[in-house]
């Protein structure tokens, strides 16, 4: 094994540690190898004189204080300390009900949107029904007078036609709302990492 191979293997085994701890450990072993080489050993002998990288890494990890291990490699996000976790648990009687309340509001608003959509569709459906009923009356009204009856049939059919025309886009809107909800929920679970 070359010096580079040894140190790379060691660094890989130590990736759980905070960057600074891992760096110190690797430079210690690099120094050891260099000192042995300076003493006259070949690179290969110097490396084999040492403990295997994973055994060395295990020893280093066991000797690392628990507090440091718990921190691990979280430098990309805000480090979560024990204190933060304790605060979260202790504070849950405060933030948990608030969170539930907020979620309830969101659910209520969402339900209201659907209810509004449903009543719009119902309204247009009623228009259609009105038109059909009027046309039916118009047929009867024909007995009272042809022009009168035809006029009512015409008005009724017109009304029904307009109603039908408006129901169709309302249903499309409902379908779009449904798809949008599914997509939003998926995005929340997958998270920003994978979003395009």
């Amino acid at each position: 094994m070359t010096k580079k191979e040894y140190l790379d293997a060691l660094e890989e085994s130590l990736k759980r540690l905070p960057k600074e701890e891992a760096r110190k450990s690797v430079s210690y072993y690099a120094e050891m190898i260099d000192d042995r080489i300076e003493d006259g050993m070949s690179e290969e002998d110097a490396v084999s004189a040492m403990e295997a990288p994973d055994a060395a890494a295990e020893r280093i990890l066991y000797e690392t204080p628990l507090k440091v291990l718990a921190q691990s490699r979280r430098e990309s996000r805000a480090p979560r300390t024990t204190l933060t976790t304790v605060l979260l648990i202790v504070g849950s009687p405060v933030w948990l009900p608030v969170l539930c309340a907020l979620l309830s509001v969101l659910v209520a608003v969402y339900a209201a949107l659907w209810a509004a959509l449903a009543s719009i569709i119902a309204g247009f459906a009623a228009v259609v029904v009105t038109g059909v009923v009027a046309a039916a009356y118009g047929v009867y009204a024909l007995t009272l007078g042809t022009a009168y009856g035809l006029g009512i049939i015409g008005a009724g059919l017109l009304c029904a036609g307009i109603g039908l025309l408006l129901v169709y886009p309302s249903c499309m809107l409902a379908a779009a709302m449904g798809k949008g909800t599914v997509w939003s929920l998926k995005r929340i679970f997958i998270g920003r990492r994978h979003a395009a």
Partner: protein
Amino acid sequence: MDPQLKRGVLEVAVLSAVSREESYGYKIIKDLSVCVEISESTLYPILKRLESAELLTARTSEHNGRLRKLYSITLSGRHRIEEFLESWKEAMDVYAYIRGGWRN
């Protein structure tokens, strides 16, 4: 040597090696080899513990174009060696007693 015993004395042995002159990892291992074999993997945690207990201090210096970590003993470190020698003097008396009674 009994592993527990070895662990106890190794720390002070490392302190002693460093108390004679400012030293570095590999040199400590070589110096100690006159009385005890210690691997770099054993030495590393010992050095870390001693440094965090402030019995040692470390500084980085340049040597042949690379960086080397040099350790030197602190006052607390010297006190630690004194403590060790004191408590072991007693142990030596007990050792002598046990040795004296051992006919084999």
